[in-house]
């Protein structure tokens, strides 16, 4: 596996994790409010 591919996958996973955390923090709350 080339290095850039591994790096890109890790960054993509981290990005996805960030989105997930953000949704858990702000998105889910608002759904309950409505």
């Amino acid at each position, binding site marked *: 596996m080339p290095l850039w591919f591994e790096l890109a996958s*890790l960054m993509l996973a*981290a*990005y996805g*994790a*960030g*989105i997930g955390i*953000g949704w858990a*923090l702000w998105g889910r709350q*608002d759904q309950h409010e409505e």
Partner: protein
Amino acid sequence: MSELLQTYWPLIVAALLLGLVIAWYLFSASRKTRVSGTSGDVLDEGAAPAQRNKALIDSAPAATPMQPAAGIPAEPAAPAAATAPAAATPAPEKPAAPPAASGADDLTRIKGVGPKLSSTLNAMGVTSFAQIAAWDEAEIDRIDAQLGRFQGRIRRDDWVGQASLLAAGDDSGFAQRYGKLS
């Protein structure tokens, strides 16, 4: 893999932060704008502001009483007339009577005449109790027709009777007949 994490962890953290920022923008920032769109209705304030605005619209402009004053024929005699009653009656009962300063009587002393009616009358050139006391039936009808929603007040509140007592300076007679001076 672990060496890769150790070497490039700042990039990974940056990607995580980027994901967080984008998630915040999607889920929180955009929702905030939607919430700000559903602001309260005007009528949530109740009817008080509407009444206040209506009163402001109905009230005469502050400048109007000054304009017809120039058209009064007895204008030159006014300053002399002004000094005489002022010297005779220091008027301790008058709270604050701005119209009295220019030789005119404070028409709001007539019961039933408020600031609005007073300024309306001033705009018609009626500034003294003596003028009102001298009104005959035809004059009352003529003035009454110009009073708008206050029509009928002249006879109902007996302005002529009140004004003749006030013009004569008969404060006790006025108090006896119409109640205490305000």
